[in-house]
């Protein structure tokens, strides 16, 4: 089974907060994309770096992205 390496963090986007601004797509293009409703969703298998994902979370104007590292 192919999955994210255990040390890779995981991002979640709170869709009650996401306003579809797209800042995260600019900051971490491989990690976030819009779904059919224009909500940002995280792709755990995408070609992203942890730095870019954390930068995207910091840059989100709605504070909708949280980044966690699985224990």
């Amino acid at each position, binding site marked *: 089974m192919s999955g994210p390496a255990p040390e890779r963090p995981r991002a979640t986007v709170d869709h*009650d907060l996401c*306003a*579809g*601004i*797209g*800042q995260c797509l*600019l900051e971490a293009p491989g990690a976030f994309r819009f779904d059919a*409703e*224009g909500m940002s969703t995280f792709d755990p298998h995408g070609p992203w770096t942890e730095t870019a994902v954390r930068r995207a979370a*910091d*840059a*989100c*104007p*709605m*504070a909708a992205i949280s980044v966690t590292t699985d224990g």
Partner: protein
Amino acid sequence: MPETLSAAPQSFDDLLSEAAVQTPTEFYNRLREQEPVYWNPRWNGWIVTGYRDVMAGFRDHERLSSDRFAGPFAKDMADSGSRYRQLIDFMNHWMFTKDRPYHTHLRSLVNTAFTPRSVEVLRPRIQQLTASLAESLRGRDRVNLMAEFAFTLPVIVIAEYLGIPPESRENLRAWSDDLGAVVFFQGGNQDRFETGGKAMEQLAELIRPIVRDRARNPREDLISGMVHAELDGDRFLEDEIISNVVLMVFAGHETTMNLIANGVVAFDRFPGEWQRLADDQGLARTAVEEVLRYDGPIRALARWAREPFELSGRRIDTNDRVLLVQHAANHDPTFFPHADRFDVGRWPNKHLAFGQGIHTCVGAPLARLEAQEAFAYLAREFSAVEVLTPDLRYSRNLVSRSLLGLEVRLHER
């Protein structure tokens, strides 16, 4: 509950009528019930009032353009542009009048400055200002809340953040009012381009020397950040910086002032909610979201169609104007349970007060922070902010929900 219609059929064509301006919730509730996507021959465009349609409209920046220099809104600009060159040239650098890709370039100038994390540094100063401004209102019979608090707090915060001397704040208010008349489609004001043009000239005169100074002597302020910003080799013209500083000044206090004032009025009508907030300050966050939903500072924003498409069974044609009425969407009972109730604990609360999509208000995190601190402090310190103005009057325009005056008395706990 639908309200009883009066004997005479109500016209939905005059969006600057007494009913539309003074009681927009009732006016747009009736319109939404009858025709949620309504062709208004007088405004010469579609009026969209259902939550899902307004949401979809904001998200669809490909088909619904914000560009004021192309399409059906361009004529106004071109006609005025020959006489008010600087006003129009500067508005041409305002991100909310542009589409991608130029919009992305302009927004990148400021978007990192207004993230929740960035504005957090302003919290102590906002708390201090809130307390000192409120202190001077204590024990007085009548307070002009707009002039003495709701305007003062955000204008000092944004002026300091940008690096503009706060002494100029009374001028900033007058100039912003004049720019607002242009931007908000103010009715019955034939001179709005004339006065708006003068205001823009005076603002540019104030800001240009500051921009030039920060180019040589950078400080810890936002203007310095803008002057020295370079993203992927992308730099900004001096006029782009000046016009966006003007935009931050204007948008940075006008709307927050109205958010605070409209919130005071909402709490006056629902005193139990004021007490709830006083008892649980953790509710400040959801309380501000509820003020934004219930009576936010922006009523509606206009777009135009780049191509034909369907919206709730109506065919929108190329070049049609489309008014997305946020105030109406935020009261749509098919999306918000008990939409007519002001509930400071409401969550989730995905209101459209800041818009949605790529043009979502860039200053939203700062507006939220200021309003949260203001309401938390006032509810903690005062048992009520009583509205004294007997007949509240709102500015006669399409876009902003702005009180012309608000007198209050703050009651000690």
